[in-house]
């Protein structure tokens, strides 16, 4: 049945029988429909929006030509879970106007392959789309990304939990050609946006640091301080077995390798040193 409705909608769209009065005709009936007139509070319902719906086909820009909807109750294009349109078809309505620089990589994004519809995250019939605020965005993303939501509550995490940051500070929900839809080409470049003190170049570089911040850190959160994957000194000893103290068993609380700041008691410049004597990141 949904398939029949979809075929009918495609035919209607191709026939292009638009209404005689535009939005005024629609609102004669739909002024009573809850939430519909909220469109006029938002940017999509503003007649001054350049190339916006109200400056063109109005309601029918998104919901398709009216045809015989009025009187014979022919179906119109609808959005959401009950829509006869696939997510891709629903999105084609939005992308008709929004296929621009900011969404250049949408077609290759994970959200497309997961059949996420624009309306799963965005609202149009509203004064202001909640997903455009930091708290609204975090709530929206975390509805699906539940593990990331969990991570934000760990002992050490970026301040997503208190909406001091939002997911889009690092990721582009509309896709990017970088891994994990990061905003910058490489993970480290994304981190350097806020942590330029780690960028260097340093006189003495710590190879795994310059290679990938995620070698040691989990950016979504960790039960270990500093978002470390494992705490010091165990983490350091997963790479360092040089003779003398790096190769020894981690001492208990009474060891300088464990107490205080662990290995960083002496090797404090672990992200790289700019001291001529900083070969071992001690200065």
């Amino acid at each position, binding site marked *: 049945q949904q398939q029949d409705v979809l075929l009918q909608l495609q035919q209607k769209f191709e026939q292009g029988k638009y209404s005689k009065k535009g939005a005024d005709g629609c609102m004669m009936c739909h002024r009573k429909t809850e939430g519909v007139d909220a469109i006029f509070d938002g940017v999509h319902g503003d007649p001054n929006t350049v190339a916006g719906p109200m400056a063109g*086909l109005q309601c029918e820009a998104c919901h398709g030509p009216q045809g015989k909807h009025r009187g014979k109750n022919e179906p119109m294009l609808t959005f959401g879970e009950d829509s006869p349109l696939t997510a891709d078809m629903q999105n084609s309505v939005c992308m008709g106007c929004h*296929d621009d620089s900011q969404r250049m990589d949408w077609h290759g994004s994970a959200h497309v392959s997961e059949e996420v519809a624009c309306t799963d995250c965005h609202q149009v019939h509203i004064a202001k789309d909640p997903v455009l605020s930091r708290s609204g965005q975090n709530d929206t993303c975390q509805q699906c990304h539940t593990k990331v939501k969990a991570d934000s509550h760990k002992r050490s995490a970026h301040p997503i939990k208190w909406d001091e940051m939002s997911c889009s500070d690092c990721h582009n929900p509309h896709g990017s050609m970088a891994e994990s839809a990061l905003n910058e080409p490489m993970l480290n470049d994304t981190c350097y*946006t806020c942590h330029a003190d780690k960028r260097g170049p340093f006189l003495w570089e710590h190879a795994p640091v*310059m290679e990938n911040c995620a070698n040691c850190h989990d950016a979504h959160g960790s039960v270990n301080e500093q978002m470390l994957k494992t705490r010091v000194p165990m983490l350091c000893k997963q790479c360092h077995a040089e003779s003398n103290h790096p190769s020894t068993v981690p001492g*208990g609380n009474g060891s300088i390798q464990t107490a205080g700041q662990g290995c960083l008691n002496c090797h404090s410049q672990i992200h790289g040193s700019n001291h001529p004597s900083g070969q071992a990141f001690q200065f």
Partner: protein
Amino acid sequence: FDFGVPAANTSKAKTDAWACKKCVSSDSIQGSVAVGLGNAISSDDHAANALGYEDGFAASVDADLLHRSDSGLRTSVEAKELGSKRGDLAVTAGRAGQWKVGASLDQKYQVDSTTAHSDLLASGNTLVRQGEPVQQQLDKERQQLGFDAKYMGSHWGSYLSMTSESRKGSQRSSISNGGVEAQNIVAPIDSTTQNLTAAVHVSGGDWLAEAGVKGSWYDNDIDSLSLEGAAQPAQAGAPDNQAYSVYLKGRYRLGATQLSGRLASGRQTQDQDLVTLTGVPTGVTAADLQVDTLDGQLALVSRLSSKSTLRASMIYNDRDNASTLYQFDQLRFDTLSGTVEQTQAVDRSYGTYKVSADYRLASGHKLTGGVDYKQTERSAGDREETDEVTAWARYHWSAAARWDMRVKASFGQRDGSRYQAGAATSTESNELMRKYYLADRDRTKLELEISHTPLDSVSLDFSTYYALDDYSDTEIGLTESEDYGWDLSGHWQALSSVSVTAFGGMQWIDNQQLGSDSGSYATWAAENHDEFGYAGVSVAYTGLQEQGIQLSMDYQYSYSGSDVDTSGQPFDDDYESDSHSVSLNAGYAISAAASVGLRYQYERYQDSDYAEVPVENYPGQGVTGLTSLGQLSQNYNAHLIMLTLSYRL
């Protein structure tokens, strides 16, 4: 099928006579503004992380206002918790769909600990010795000013984004004498980062292209830290540095195929004066370091049929370190050791190649599979090349009403060129060591997600995962890592006026590693067990909405813990944290426009760390050679009560 306006048949549309009586075209203001007054009660200002306020008077302004002029100019003012430690403000103006300018203030604040004790007190770049330990606070404050502008024409546009972020406060650090004596310090932070992006984009019927530049400038006012009167700086700060890049990106559509590409060339530089000239060759006074980067990305998405899509992508990154190499005599105990070390300029290139396809077997049955190949090459290091191949498959089942299930399995193998332990270090490493980020590794991962809507008023989501990293050729180092857990959430619209959301989950990460102080075989073992749990519930009641009353409640609990077991000495005490967070909100509408609200927030937080030891440690009684910052853990109850008055325009 494309339902977009550009694909529409508008030959019969006669929109000239269309009006829009409901449209707002006159001068108007909409939105709301709220003022909050209250009090934060906390015995530890670490609570400011959760509350946004330190102990004492609390005030805030929240606003979301929009002015629309007759001519269509939209001006907005947004304020969020302005007055708190994390208050934000943004002002924008523009014509929707054409141009927009905006300025913003974004503040972040984070307290690490309020109970650091040290007899070293920082004054600028100098650490001044006090007569006795002084209690100091470890906290960071970020304040970012931003400016954005964009213009959108019919086939071209441009945008500019600039930010300037100051970072002030203090952080944990440590100084040592190059031997085995160390003193933990409260190190000052005072730096600024400025970022800029500017781009121009053009588009045609089937293509988009963009050219842009990016710049980033980091300026650190703490270029070194020195003990008062010392001949040598105890620490070099993060150096002032700059990064620039130019990029070109584009996308072309050919029928059902989309081809995207991006090419960027960048440079990162540093020319900071050296913090000491001791041990430095004559004539060298400043660093001359330069890294050139090249990024290339390609992506192809092709709809093969109504049932199948093919995806392929490539990411390439090259880091060419063109820095001058130096030979420095290394200091130890404030004197030259006679050991001369040479800096390294490590080049690295990284490539990722992915191909995947999905196929809709039938309505509600979708199968996706792919292969990822990653290759990293380094000019120096224990292993000059690593290669990883991962195959994965995913099945999405949504054939039954009210059910949705996704299951994904992946298996990856990493190996590479001959491993040369210790090649990257001047000291001799155990030749059996395999560094975990370079080692051979078999990675197996399973994921399951199930969504169920048993009733129109009830929805449930469950996910679980298991990942095993087996370092198959490692005798010394990380040998195995397991990561597994589950998450569950549910929503219940109990009555038309009551909605309940509950969520929770657990995660465990277990690592096993081996070490050796003999050289030829493992002589010790360690196991690391991380555990995390969280739960929460939110309830909203709207049954008294007609009387103007709204009520809501949120509760969240989280637990983080980590244990270490070694074949050596035990790690006494705990390394864990837990928190209970409660938020109660009540609102009452005095009139159609004005309302009062009451917000109560409660935070119960405690953490512990077995690594914390008293400030002074004497041989035989404590930790030999270490002066720590003392007990940094927290254990407190904190409350925030805010009365808000809001007005809707």
